[in-house]
């Protein structure tokens, strides 16, 4: 082989063979790529197919009844929504400011390397360990008990590193020359960040942040011991159905709900399990598509 590499005057036969090999490699790697994608598409189609009998507006808007043998998934659905919302309120400011620090203030020294290392490691902590941390720190140490707030804090810590990373990326896309121009006009660092850097990156930052938090809210392990519960009684209509959980209440969540109805409870109609899974995947796809669409929109109206 190495003699081939060294021979600059490769014979046509070799070239011909080379073309064949290249085609082979291309088709092999393409096949491998599809081997990853086809199962996903098949699974999604299968889930929707099996869930079809259950999928309806009522399924989304009704509360679980009789150990999930009737009704729908409104409670878990709204619980997951509130989990996302509260986590977002806690994690977004901290994570965004941390990203601002790393991109705008941090010098290239050991402190920064240390912080970056911490971000990488925080991102790698297993979700169940986050759950243990939430239990030890928020539920017991801070005395929150198991509740929406404790679970949201846990999810917030879990999403912090990804928020920091995506913020850093969005900030780095703002050209340095804008900052230099502002500094030269006598703007302070924060004025520059507030008036130039953030306004031109905030939509990108928020897309990333919401995507990441929504993704984390699909996790079960961190909320398992920090506040999620099954079949809490909530109102079927009115204001109490729209905002069923206070910060100090335990709550239902889609992920936990699916875990319980598919492993612990008997006699749950199959279409209900599949329906819950399909709704979760539907939400994932919706949030992802929205963020992709929004990114394309942003790219189209780029200001420079």
């Amino acid at each position: 082989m190495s003699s081939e590499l060294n021979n600059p005057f490769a014979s046509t036969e070799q070239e011909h063979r080379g073309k064949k090999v290249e085609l082979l490699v291309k088709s092999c790697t393409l096949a491998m790529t599809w081997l990853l994608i086809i199962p996903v598409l098949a699974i999604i189609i299968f889930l929707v197919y099996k869930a079809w009998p259950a999928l309806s507006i009522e399924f989304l808007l009704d509360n679980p009844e009789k150990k999930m043998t009737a009704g729908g998934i409104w409670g878990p659905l709204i619980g997951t929504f509130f989990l996302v919302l509260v986590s977002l309120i806690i994690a977004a400011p901290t994570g965004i400011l941390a990203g601002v620090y790393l991109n705008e203030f941090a010098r290239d020294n050991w402190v920064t390397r240390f912080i970056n290392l911490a971000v990488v490691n925080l991102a790698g902590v297993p979700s169940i360990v986050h759950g243990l941390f939430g239990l030890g720190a928020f539920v017991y140490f801070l005395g929150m008990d198991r509740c929406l707030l404790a679970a949201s804090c846990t999810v917030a810590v879990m999403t912090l590193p990804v928020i920091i990373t995506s913020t850093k990326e969005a900030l780095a896309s703002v050209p340095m020359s804008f900052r230099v121009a502002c500094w030269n006009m006598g703007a302070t660092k924060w004025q520059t960040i507030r008036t130039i850097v953030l306004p031109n990156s905030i939509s990108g930052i928020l897309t990333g942040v919401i995507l990441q938090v929504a993704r984390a809210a699909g996790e079960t392990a961190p909320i398992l011991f920090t506040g999620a519960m099954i079949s809490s009684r909530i109102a079927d209509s009115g204001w109490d159905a729209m905002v069923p959980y206070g910060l100090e209440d335990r709550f239902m969540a889609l992920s936990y709900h699916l875990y319980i109805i598919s492993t612990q409870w008997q006699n749950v109609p199959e279409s209900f399990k599949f329906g819950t899974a399909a709704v979760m995947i539907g939400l994932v796809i919706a949030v992802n598509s929205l963020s992709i669409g929004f990114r394309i929109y942003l790219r189209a109206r780029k200001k420079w």
Partner: protein
Amino acid sequence: MEYQIEFRDVSVYYGKDIALQGINLQIPRNEIFGIIGPANAGKTTFLKAINRTLEFIHSAKTTGEVLFDGKDVRQIRNVYGLRRKVGVVFPLPVGLPMSIYENVAYAPRRSGIHNKQELEEIVVRCLKQAMLWDEVKDRLHMLGTKLSGGQQQRLTIARALSHSPDVLCLDEFSIAIDPVTTMKIEDVLTELKSEMTIILVTNLVQQARRLADQTAFFNKSELVEVGTTEKIFTSPENQLTYDYVTGDFG
């Protein structure tokens, strides 16, 4: 108090690399002061030393004194006030991603001017001074980044003027724009001279000859020679200077 800006034995280092070495220089008020020299001669560093934007380069270290209005710039507690007295125009035009109006109103807003009428006066005055008014007066709310290169460079000048600086620094402003616009801006500079001190760093030797009252020649981090433009261009003391201005350099 004689001089607008005075350098007293100023050296600047980037880490181990030396960028300016032992510069002694006086720049009088209301003059156009030309600075010429090859690339990497320290010309841009010289400008950055005046308004202390060198501080944004973490590895930069300065020794010696830079006096602005007779005051050591490093003693000035309020560096933002200092930077407002110095307008800077960069080699490549930078339109900020906001409307033309907001581009020019940016610095006044940051210094606390919120009165609409006052802002408008500043915007109109600066755009007129930068000879951009006629071209943009009907579309002040267009994005500054969507202007052509030459227009953006004049917008940058208008912005540099918007905080009423005492000193206007131009760093090779004509590098990315066409000759006609360059001539227009050169006219602007001659007019502005009565109002402020202008430091013109240029890679075009003839531009310095046309505009500058005094010219300094920098080479390899050092100030080789400074004198009236006429002297530098007709009878320089240093052979290097002679070679550079006659085009035999290198």
